[in-house]
């Protein structure tokens, strides 16, 4: 048999000893290998390799700082295969340690080599490292989605400026949701593909709008998350502007929806100027903003549901959902609403609904016009359980709804609470059955039990299946609204039913008029 001795030299290539021994053993165990060694090219090691019959002319030339891969194999074909495998291993130092475990790259370079067609990197490392990883990715030709939070603002600004010069998009930091070319990324939902593009500075905002569009008969072309701070003055909307450019140029996008909290004034002007220059129609949903002057190709939407409806061509979503037919009074004397939210934007939107209806509300993450929650909640209080104070050391409530179990139990026992508002968010990254979890934590209802009102953010295409989640909630007597905004309005409508508070009636009707008037949406009085 004609054995073949092959040497490959990696000049100036250092591996730590443990890794070197591991690779040596792996390569030596490969089929067709008679003898193998990976050694630094010192004179003594070359002697060992020569004595073992695996040092060739190439290896002879190596010096102490070079790594020699020395093989004696059955033929050249095997040699080529083994060398390719060895190179692959050496470039992927994090090879699987457990038998049967799939290989996963440990570095960006290794990942790119294994998937050379990639053009997007999703980064989820501690915030202090995210900037460096994002920079690496940008300079290797990739767009970037930064899921990480706790990235310093100055780093975000520097990264986005650099990305702009490179012509690449930075989604985030703290970007929890995106849908790119039909692929849901991080916390996102399976939605129908269509011609509506979304640019969002909010994860659950994008989720709510994309799901409502999909459930409402439309579809999403792209959903680009830009991070919660992008529209601050420091950042200047750099990613938002780039996202608008991309969607403007995308032939599959007909209508563009922009979702955010109200931006800094100067940034709003820049963004609206960019929208004006577009030939496409836009929906602008700056949650909490009052009516604003928009260019002729843009419509203002005060809620996420309204944003979805205008994008669908002013088509009503669940026009059969009629508040005054569905609302029931809470137990007598119980007039407080307590909201337990997993989505920050959903909590904020509910606060805006309350504020615009003239109802005082407090929160741990208050919007302008709401009070900050201090101590024990009193009156209407809407809590974001996804905020840092609840998630430090704990999973996010979307992943593990148990985070709000204690809050739910206390709320149900509170004699002042007449209505409990809850959001249920499904999709990728979310708990496998948040509705089931919630339903299991509700005791048998009595006449004195507070009403529980929920909305489900998701689609029937999600693994958890929205219809199934809704069904589980309804079976336990939970009132289910078609959207988060509807749930907040329903809570207020229920209070109106039971509290005898005439003032609420007037304000609620004003709020509803404001919502319908601005969007042109017509709610048909059908049965629920």
């Amino acid at each position, binding site marked *: 048999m004609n054995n073949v001795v092959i040497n490959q030299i990696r000049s*100036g290539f*250092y*591996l*730590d*000893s*443990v890794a*070197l*021994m591991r690779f*040596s053993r792996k390569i030596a165990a490969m089929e067709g290998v008679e003898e193998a*060694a*990976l*050694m*630094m090219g*010192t*004179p*003594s*090691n070359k*002697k*060992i390799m020569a*004595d*073992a019959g695996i040092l060739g002319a190439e290896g002879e030339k190596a010096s*102490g*700082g070079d790594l020699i891969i020395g093989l004696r194999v059955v033929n050249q074909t095997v040699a080529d295969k083994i060398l390719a495998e060895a190179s692959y291993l050496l470039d992927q*130092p994090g090879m699987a340690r457990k038998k049967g475990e799939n290989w996963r790259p*440990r*570095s960006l370079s290794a990942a790119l080599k294994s998937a050379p067609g990639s053009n997007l990197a999703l980064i989820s*490392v*501690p915030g*202090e*490292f995210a*900037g*460096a*990883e994002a*920079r*690496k990715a940008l300079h290797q030709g990739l767009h970037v989605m930064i899921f990480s939070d706790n990235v*310093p603002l*100055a*780093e975000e600004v*520097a*990264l986005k*400026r*650099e990305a702009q010069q490179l012509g690449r998009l930075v989604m985030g930091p703290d970007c929890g949701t995106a849908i790119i070319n039909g692929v849901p990324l991080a916390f996102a939902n399976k939605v129908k593909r269509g011609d509506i593009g979304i640019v969002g500075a909010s994860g659950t905002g994008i989720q709510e709008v994309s799901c409502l569009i999909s459930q409402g008969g439309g579809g999403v072309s792209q959903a680009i998350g830009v991070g919660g701070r992008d529209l601050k003055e420091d950042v200047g909307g750099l990613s938002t502007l780039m996202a608008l450019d991309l969607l403007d140029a995308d032939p599959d996008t007909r209508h563009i929806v922009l979702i955010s909290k109200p931006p800094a004034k100067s940034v709003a002007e820049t963004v609206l100027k960019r929208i004006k220059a577009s030939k496409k129609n836009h929906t602008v949903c700056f949650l909490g903003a009052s009516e604003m002057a928009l260019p002729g190709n843009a419509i203002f939407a005060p809620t996420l549901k309204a944003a979805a409806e205008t994008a669908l061509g002013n088509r009503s979503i669940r026009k059969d959902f009629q508040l005054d037919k569905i609302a029931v009074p809470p137990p007598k004397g119980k007039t407080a609403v307590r909201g337990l939210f997993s989505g920050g934007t959903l909590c904020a939107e509910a606060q805006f609904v309350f504020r615009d209806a003239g109802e005082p509300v407090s929160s741990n993450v208050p919007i302008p016009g709401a009070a900050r929650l201090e101590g024990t909640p009193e009156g209407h209080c809407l809590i974001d359980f996804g905020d840092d104070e609840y998630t430090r050391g704990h999973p996010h409530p979307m992943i593990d709804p148990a985070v709000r179990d204690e809050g739910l139990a206390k709320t149900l026992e509170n004699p002042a609470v007449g209505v409990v508002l809850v959001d249920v968010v499904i999709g990728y990254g979310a708990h496998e059955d948040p509705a089931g979890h919630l339903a299991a934590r509700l005791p048998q209802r009595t006449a004195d039990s507070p009403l529980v009102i929920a909305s489900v953010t998701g689609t029937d295409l999600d693994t958890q299946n929205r219809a199934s989640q809704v069904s589980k909630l309804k079976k336990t007597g939970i009132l289910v609204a078609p959207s988060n905004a509807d749930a907040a309005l329903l809570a207020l409508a229920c209070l109106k039913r039971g509290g005898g508070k005439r003032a609420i009636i007037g304000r609620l009707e004003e709020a509803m008029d404001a919502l319908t008037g601005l969007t042109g949406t017509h709610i048909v009085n059908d049965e629920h």
Partner: protein
Amino acid sequence: MMNTNGRYSAQFHVVRLGPIAMRILSECGQGLVIAVFDRCFYGRIGDDLICVGSASLGMCPLNVITTIPHGGIRLLALEVDMPFRIADGCIKMRTGHLVLTLDGARTWTPEPVDPLAPERLKSGLEALEKATIHRLPEEGLGRFIRPAQEWESTMPATPVLSHAVEPLGRLQAWLRVALANPLAIKRPDILLWQELLGLGPGLTPSGDDLIGGVMLALHNLGQLPLLKAFSVAVAQVVAERTNVISAAHLRGAMEGMGHEAIHRIIAAVLSGEQEKIPQLIEKVKKIGHTSGWDTLAGIVIVFRLWQESRTACQSAA
């Protein structure tokens, strides 16, 4: 923190330095990254090397221990040939994306040893031998911690071992004579055992670690003229016999400095603190793949030869 180019820098602090690293970093200079690993990176400044990493690295004379979290080195976008500067109390990557501040860093020094006492050494060596029965690694040269007759017939020979036996025998012969008469040291003929240098597959080859252990033992026995003669011989050939990273560690050993865990076990053996030795062996085991064992082997070889020479002197007297 923004650097002068308007780009953002990740900033960490140096908390502890090895004495050689401290010396190198006390002067301004320019360097290049020469190797990047999971827990550390090596930088070359002139002919010197430093090893920068997180606390999990442990301490040795070249090491610069920082607040970079465990596993964080790989996330710092460091690449071979990346230049850096030492200036203004910092190590700064020229790309501007990483700054390591040196303010407040403490310098580590090796654990001091008790004055040499043959009885205590004897007791320490006995404890070491007891703690290493049936625990010797197959790879590397760690088996030389125990007498050859204990493992010759029970442990398989490896290529590294086979290539080490003869040169090590010649080195031991020289050491035996030199320790017996330290006032009349003959210059070591490095050619007789230079094959030990660079012998073995690791980043610091087993032979280098053993030689390093020899030098640490000589230093801790107070055999400084002997150490000097030995070091000069090693220095003549080290550049052509091994890689630059291992050579840098050997230069540390020439100054009597090695890994913190090694110094602790040396101190325990020399002071006869038998109860500490099993636990310290556990720490030595974790140094590299076999580096800890190999270094310990070099130390034990010298300690035993020194013991023999004391016994021979007493008998002659």
